[in-house]
């Protein structure tokens, strides 16, 4: 029953996006957020949608996958749309006036504009996790956070913690499954009863799970020490991140898009209220 929860969304592939350096991908994703929020008019937004479409095509990911990441935010989209329609007022006559509710064409336009923006944001940023393995992602984070050493933030330790956490999620899931089966075999009833009863029924599962997590943590710490692990100082990598020409080309394209969007803003002004 626990096996259908997906952790990390990496979708194996060999597209251009998969092959980009994860550090660059992380940077470009941040840049993409800027790109999504730049446009102030419909021409800009259209350009962003086209740009996103281009990236999606390059990623060779099934459309179904993207739908899966957009689905959870649909509520948010609907919610902001409603708020925008209610609160944005226009100059002309309202399209609909009822009690205190007045809906202007400008409100609807804003709602549509913002909805497209949110969907683009989610679709674009989910590409990062779809095309990058969790380990590559932590490596990239470690690299990008390493300048923070100056302010005593240990990027290596943070990245190591994340790697270990990611590594152990499936293990702990399996363990949970096993403990649940074992307690069910002793007649534990996990499926019926009221809320309190169900919470109490979790005790025989949570205690062994905690105990085993601590046991695993000690064992892992011991194993790491046996292999002389002493933090990031002077540590080399088996897989070294390397930027290739395609990474710099990608960066150049993004920068060009940012410049173009700023140009469109100046050219057509703002259509947002």
């Amino acid at each position, binding site marked *: 029953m626990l096996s259908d929860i997906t952790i990390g969304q990496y979708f194996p592939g060999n597209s251009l996006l998969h092959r980009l350096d994860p550090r660059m991908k992380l940077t470009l994703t941040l840049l993409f957020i800027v790109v999504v929020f730049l446009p102030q008019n419909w021409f800009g937004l259209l350009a962003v949608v086209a740009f996103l479409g281009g990236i999606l095509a390059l990623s060779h990911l099934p459309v179904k996958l993207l739908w899966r990441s957009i689905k959870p935010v649909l509520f948010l989209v609907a919610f902001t749309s409603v708020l925008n329609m209610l609160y944005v007022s226009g100059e002309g006559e309202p399209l609909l006036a009822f009690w205190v509710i007045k809906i202007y064409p400008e409100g609807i336009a804003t709602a549509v504009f913002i909805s497209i923006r949110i969907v683009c944001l989610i679709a674009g940023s989910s590409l990062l996790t779809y095309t990058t393995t969790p380990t590559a992602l932590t490596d990239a984070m470690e690299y990008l956070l390493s300048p923070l050493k100056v302010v005593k933030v240990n990027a290596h330790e943070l990245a190591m913690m994340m790697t270990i956490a990611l590594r152990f999620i499936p293990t702990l899931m399996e363990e949970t499954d096993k403990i649940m089966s074992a307690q069910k*075999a002793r*007649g534990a009833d996990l499926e019926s009863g009221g809320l309190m009863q169900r919470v109490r029924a979790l005790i025989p599962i949570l205690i062994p799970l905690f105990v085993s997590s601590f046991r695993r943590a000690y064992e892992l710490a011991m194993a790491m020490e046996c292999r002389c692990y002493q933090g990031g100082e002077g540590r080399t990598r088996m897989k070294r991140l390397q930027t290739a020409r395609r990474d710099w080309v990608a960066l150049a394209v993004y920068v060009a898009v940012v410049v173009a969007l700023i140009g469109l803003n100046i050219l057509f002004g703002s259509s947002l209220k």
Partner: protein
Amino acid sequence: MATLTVDNITYTYAPGSPFEQHAIRQVSLETVPGELVGVIGHTGSGKSTLVQHLNGLLRPMEGRILLDGADIWAEPKKIRDVRFRVGMVFQYPEHQLFEDTIYKDIAFGPKNMGLDEAEIDRRVRAAAAYVGLDEALLEKSPFDLSGGEKRRAAIAGVMAMEPEILILDEPTAGLDPRGRETVLAMIEEYRRSRGTTVLLVTHSMEDVARVADRVLVMNGGRVAMLDTVEKVFSRAEELEEIGLSIPAVTKTLLLLRRQGIPVDTSVYTVEQAVQQLLPLLGGDGVC
């Protein structure tokens, strides 16, 4: 005592997805009351999946499981009753201890059965005695016990439900030779005194040779062999093809036969081997 019948069951993990995997295919089996069946096979041979069907933890996708002739899934809501009649000890059962005393932990199963205090007390003490846990240990925390004691306490937790059929998944895994011996001996003792049918999942041929009446050999999710210990071990070549190690004694005799020495290779204990070899050496006494 109850009879458990496995009628042609099939189970697939993650059906319909790219990770689809047939765990077991068309497995059939019928237990004889009071016997001890050794279930043996490689990692991934489907043996653990099979035994999890027997007490209704997994529901077969095809086929049926009958307990005394009645389909255990006839009333899914009453599957708990099946779990009380078919007890199951998981691998590393000591990892499932959770109460603050051993006594309470052993009582968890009987309590779930809805028994009264006196009966629970009787069962807890009886189960503790079967596994050789001292009364004084009963009030201790499970986390203060040694590894072997924890394992025995956990097994007692299932024995206390007094199941008609007892399944143990690798009960000797990770124990030292003395610990293995203790656990096997107490399983035998429990079976002898209660007449319980026992299914022992293991990958140790030595364990099987020691305690089993029949052996079920699983390979690639199917039943490869199901026969008496002698008959299964006499098919040593096939066992080796599957990748199962046969007891060292049997292996020795097999090598002798390959060299043309006429010995019976269905032998699996040292005593039997001595019986085989002495006449060949021309002597009739013990040297």
